[in-house]
């Protein structure tokens, strides 16, 4: 069974360039703006969309994504509405893969079976759930795989060779390598070490390996993309939204346009990645 993620990754591999994976927070700053942002992403050059599911207690996120989640929740976002965002987007784009990223509790409360049914119907292709390590696979990972939804696992600098097979066992779509021990939005780790880690993971799997946490600029995307199959950018995009909001959260410019400008630059970065590597 292939998913939109598999097809997109295969296509990019044939083109010989890494994927640009873009994260934004569903419902930030409000539903309609968020839908516009989502629609703008592939047009600006994003290959895969990661949509954040807001959670009150995002333990692995830095201040930027924490604030984005709170803005979304304040704006009335719920998991139900996040799924609706995906469905609304799907009405106009049946190709770009959508991955939901967040924490387990809202899914658990929604109900795992109901969630998977609704996610599938909304055109969701994959899930990244930060607080579900392989030890907890029975909760959501196994049911998701059965439902035909990719379960994308995070591998980290603390995931050693002994543990990697366990982390990779039920992973599908791609592997998300977290470039550092830390929270989202921290400074980018030593790119040489990241490249070595990507190669180490590739020694254990044929799945594409995407790298995230700390990538903010086109130049960083180019350097990371020279080696990885994909580059994930999140905090920089969320900040682009925050930057067009006034002190009371009012929009001072079009957030979708701000995001599109940033993503266009990042897209150029990944598109020049392999050229740079060949130099």
């Amino acid at each position: 069974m292939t998913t939109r993620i598999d097809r997109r990754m295969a296509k990019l591999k044939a083109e010989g360039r890494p994927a640009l994976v873009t994260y934004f927070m569903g419902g930030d700053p409000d539903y309609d703006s968020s839908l516009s942002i989502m629609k703008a992403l592939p047009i600006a050059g994003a290959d895969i969309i990661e949509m954040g599911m807001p959670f009150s207690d995002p333990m692995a996120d830095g201040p930027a994504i924490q604030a984005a989640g709170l803005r979304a929740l304040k704006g009335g976002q719920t998991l139900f509405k996040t799924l609706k965002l995906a469905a609304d987007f799907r009405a106009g784009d049946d190709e770009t893969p959508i991955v939901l990223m967040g924490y387990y509790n809202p899914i658990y409360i929604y109900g795992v079976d109901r969630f998977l049914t609704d996610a599938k119907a909304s055109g969701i292709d994959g899930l990244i759930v930060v607080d579900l390590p392989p030890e907890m696979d029975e909760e959501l990972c196994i049911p998701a795989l059965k439902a035909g939804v990719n379960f994308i696992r995070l591998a980290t600098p603390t995931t050693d060779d002994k543990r990697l097979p366990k982390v990779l066992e039920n992973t599908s779509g791609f592997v998300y390598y977290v470039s550092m021990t830390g929270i989202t939005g921290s400074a980018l780790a030593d790119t040489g070490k990241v490249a070595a880690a990507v190669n180490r993971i590739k020694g254990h799997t044929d799945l594409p390996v995407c790298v995230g946490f700390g990538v903010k600029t086109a130049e960083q995307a180019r350097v990371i993309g020279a080696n990885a199959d994909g580059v994930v950018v999140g905090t920089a995009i969320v900040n682009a939204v925050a930057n067009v909001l006034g002190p009371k959260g009012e929009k001072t410019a079009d957030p979708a346009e701000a995001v599109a400008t940033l993503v266009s630059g990042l897209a150029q970065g990944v598109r020049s990645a392999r050229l740079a590597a060949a130099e």
Partner: protein
Amino acid sequence: MNKPAMPNSFRTGPDEQGMFGIFGGRFVAETLMPLILDLEEQWNKAKTDPEFKAELQNLSTHYAGRPSKLYFAEGLTKHLREVSSAKGLGGGAKVYFKREDLNHTGSHKINNCLGQILLAKRMGKKRIIAETGAGQHGVASATVAARFGYPCVVYMGATDVARQSPNVFRMKLLGAEVRPVTAGHGTLKDAMNEALRDWVTNVEDTYYLIGTAAGPHPYPELVRDFQSVIGTEARAQILEQEGRLPDVIIAAVGGGSNAIGLFHPFLDDKDVRIIGIEAGGRGLDGIEHCASMNAGKPGVLHGNRTYLLQNADGQILDGHSISAGLDYPGVGPEHSWLRDSGRVQYEPILDDEALEAFQLTTRVEGIIPALESAHAIAHAMKIVPTMDKDQIVIVNLSGRGDKDVHTVANMLGMEI
């Protein structure tokens, strides 16, 4: 909720996956997973190592001042017998206090901190982090860090920093860095989020000294085991002093470490009624309470599945309690399991009731209890007058109330 099958013993959990029935588990980011597995391995070795036990025993005795006394609260007993007579009941059980307030640092928290600092030492960690609500755990953490020469960072909600200023100063004197957390309502939940963020960032050299019997496995188990000294002592002491087991034991439950510490050694004593007291705040009708087991539902937060205060979308609520130590929207997973299995009964006590118990205990016993412990005493005040005179109740006096005098003065409209 499905009632789990009644086990032969209530003292065998958790299972190998760290589960107490459906509760507990290891719901953490991958970055932390290898560390948690390492902690589990080290803990399994330590708990059967005679040298580890001997060192902990030695510190407990000579540094913390254990065993803590089991004190017959004659003044309170007399008062509650008068209440009983006034109601025409003519009863009133004997009330005993397990005096954890007399420990070094003034609460039960030192029991856990001594155990965990020895684990951190075994694991070769270089830095200690902790979260704190009332500041009791922060003080105990800062204390053991000072004693063993570790740098220590304590995360504390900004609201709690304001209402527990004496403890903040104590931590600073002990050499710890107190980092106020402004996210959310600035209480224990937010402090725990921030501590987890620190841990995930400094995973190589940092030991996270969790203060309550919650979090990812093996924390609920190891904190319980370090705190079970409370119940083990109390059980032996009451047998010695009264020649029999108590009829009722009562403890306040925030995360629930003092409670599980008292309860666990009594769980298989079927005739002992066990009651955990949740913070009822301003009442269970609204959201201004922290009674997760009376008014919440199971969910996943801070590494474990347990009863949580949350909305229909699975977003965690902040809750409210007069007592900073109970101001947490969740509870340790073993309590959730004990609730569903029916072995332990969990009841709410309101802010006002706790305040009344705080004042009464101070006047009739000359003991200023922590507001957390005052919740447990408040429940004893409700049930003791309805019991017979030959019955026995043990209340866990988990901490002393010096830290709360500002809060109480504020509630009573006094200036100090």
